[in-house]
């Protein structure tokens, strides 16, 4: 299991944060102003789209100014009583041990409907008389629910960082992971993320983890998609789907065609189903989906596609009964598609040796590649004398000999013996 890079490379200090320097500067000034007495606005309200670094900024402020960090999120302030429970904390500037304190109320968007109204009112009351800095975070500060709250707050907007800024951040990660990354490749991931640093880092991990080099070709296939949902979230919907319809929906959201999506699912099922029975069921579903693909081929009736989709999505999702996932399991690009080109070259080599055998042995090249080449390989690896003789007799070139020995020294020895 790997650690998620979004966690591993989460900024600790303000200078590691990507973008939004203006808002961050204002926030720092406001926090500093608390040292000179109570400011007019007792709370800062950070708002903006997901993944732009709001929460992490507050954490970094606490870190850089050595403040006691108190964090509450949606579940902690649904009702008035719940809010009152931490109101006491906000009434004092600093802890018993002389540390200054900063309070973060995250995910205010999580307050919903009428039942939480009391919550917003209670928060307003706490903020009004707070004796230490309180930071509020929501995606949209202009939601009517927050109208009573806004007047007490310093409003700071967080915008999506530019692709260049995101790419810089990705580059830093690559450096510490020991990945040599092409600038183009990183820029491409950055652009695709649309300024969502978290998803860019997730994509980078999925594409680059364990690699020594990351080139444009490794990432460019992402470009076939123009919709926002990355293949990874689509896969998550299939592999962890809770309802048939949500699993099936994945097909509409994916920007790859059904066959390619099938490959993605087929590749990744084993690492996400760790219970043997679940795995067998999931693979079985894929096998049935494959049968329907065959039926489409033989009848040319594409209406069977619906059953392919049923089995490869919902069928897989509902195979999950006992499987647990622990940690972060990366999604892998379909290996057999990658392998196809590699093994094509290998088979071409076997066939060209087969052709040489054919000229001597009254046997088809296809059959020679399958039936004779394996024996040649053993001979070439063990008996240079015999190998040299056979190479001469079959008129093999050096590349073929190299393939059969799989070893440079042995190849050289054989070529030498051939004279």
């Amino acid at each position, binding site marked *: 299991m790997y650690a998620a890079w979004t966690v591993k490379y989460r900024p600790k200090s303000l200078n590691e944060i990507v973008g939004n320097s203006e808002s961050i500067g204002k926030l720092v000034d406001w926090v500093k102003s608390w040292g000179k007495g109570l400011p007019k606005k007792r709370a800062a309200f950070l708002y903006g789209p997901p993944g732009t670094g709001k929460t992490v900024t507050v954490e970094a402020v606490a870190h850089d100014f050595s403040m006691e960090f108190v964090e509450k999120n949606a579940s902690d302030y649904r009702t008035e009583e719940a809010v009152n429970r931490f109101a006491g904390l906000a009434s004092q500037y600093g802890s018993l041990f002389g540390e200054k304190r900063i309070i973060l109320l995250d995910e205010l968007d999580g307050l919903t409907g009428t039942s939480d109204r009391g919550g917003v009112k209670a928060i307003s009351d706490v903020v009004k008389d707070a004796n230490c800095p309180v930071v509020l975070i929501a995606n949209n500060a202009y939601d009517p629910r927050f109208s009573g709250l806004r007047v007490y707050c310093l409003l700071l907007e967080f915008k999506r960082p530019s692709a260049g800024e995101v790419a810089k951040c990705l580059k830093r990660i690559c450096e510490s992971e020991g990945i040599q990354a092409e600038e183009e490749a990183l820029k491409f991931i950055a652009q695709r993320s649309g300024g969502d640093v978290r998803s860019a880092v997730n994509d980078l991990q999925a594409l680059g983890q364990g690699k020594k080099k990351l080139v444009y070709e490794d990432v460019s296939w992402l470009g076939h998609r123009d919709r926002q949902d990355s293949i990874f979230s689509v896969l998550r919907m299939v592999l962890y789907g809770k309802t048939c319809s949500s699993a099936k929906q994945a097909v509409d959201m994916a920007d790859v065609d059904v066959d390619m999506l099938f490959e993605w699912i087929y590749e990744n099922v084993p690492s996400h189903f760790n219970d043997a029975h679940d795995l067998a069921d999931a693979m079985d579903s894929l096998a049935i989906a494959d049968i329907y693909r065959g039926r489409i081929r033989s009848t040319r009736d594409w209406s069977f596609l619906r059953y392919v989709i049923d089995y490869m999505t919902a069928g897989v999702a509902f195979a999950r009964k006992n499987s647990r996932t622990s940690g972060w399991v990366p999604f892998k690009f379909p290996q057999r598609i990658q392998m196809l080109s590699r093994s094509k070259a290998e088979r071409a080599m076997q066939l060209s040796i087969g052709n040489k055998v054919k000229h001597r042995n009254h046997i088809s090249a296809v059959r020679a590649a399958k039936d004779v080449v394996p024996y040649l390989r*053993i001979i070439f690896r063990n008996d240079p004398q015999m190998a040299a003789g056979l190479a001469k007799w079959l008129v093999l070139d050096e590349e073929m000999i190299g393939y059969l020995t799989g070893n440079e020294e042995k190849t050289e020895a054989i070529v030498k013996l051939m004279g």
Partner: protein
Amino acid sequence: MSFEMWAEKYRPKTLDDIFNQKEIVDRLKSFARSRNVPHCIFAGPPGTGKTTAALCLARDLYGDVYREHLMELNASDERGIDVVRETVKTFARVKSIGEIPFKIMILDEADNMTSDAQQALRRTMERYTETCRFIMCANYSGKIIEPIQSRCAPFRFTYLPREEHDRCLKQIAEKERVKLSADGLSAIFEVCGGDLRKAINTLQASAALGKPVDAKVIYSIAGKASPADVQKMIKTAISGNFMEARDQLRDMIQKYGVAGIDIIRQIHTELFRAEVPEQWKIRLADVVGEVDYRLVEGADEEVQLSALLAKLVEAGEELRSKK
């Protein structure tokens, strides 16, 4: 220094050299004597002497210059209809310039020809009977279309019996100065099942190790030479490692081009020797049969076979939980 593939070096040159398939050889000899050959089908498993018999017949007919009167085509490599239209026809219609008025065309692995090509061939055979006689070699005569079968004299080749197999290999071992022990000889027969080409290749590869050839050497060679190490894959799956088993499957299919149908049939053989709960064996046989059928119908080999591997993982799991 001279080295050849032994399977070629020791291939019989004339019909007299062939010491098995007695009835077939006798009939072929009578063809050679009367200098007339009908169209023939040589059907039988690989390594039983079909091509050899055809080549020997040609040599007995034409003498050492037999190559001038003979064409060998391999349907696995050139199986399309164009080949029949061009290559075969051009060869067949030109009259031979010897005492014998016809040439011989050996169509090897003819069961791999497309049926279109076979249809075209049927007319060619008919039209140019005067100038060309066809010998079709095939593993299964059933895959050759009826009209061609009815125009040909059928010959059925069978695997070499044990004594003849042993005699042949002992002879080669002696001439090549290879120490071949009795258990080594039995091992070759067990591994190759009377396929003489495979047996000789196995012997040569074993000799390359430079040790006396005994059963142990033969088994290790056979294991290395067979890209479809199905037994190992089954073991890997039963031990619970699905990912690795699937990788092995991938190698077989993609790297070595082993046909899914061959893999599944080998799985069936191995299954009953494998360490799975007894009641699972028959359940799995049903799954294997189903996958076999699906593959025949044209389903994706890797997807179907890996679903089967997942079942083996499941069986292994059950086995462990009982212990």
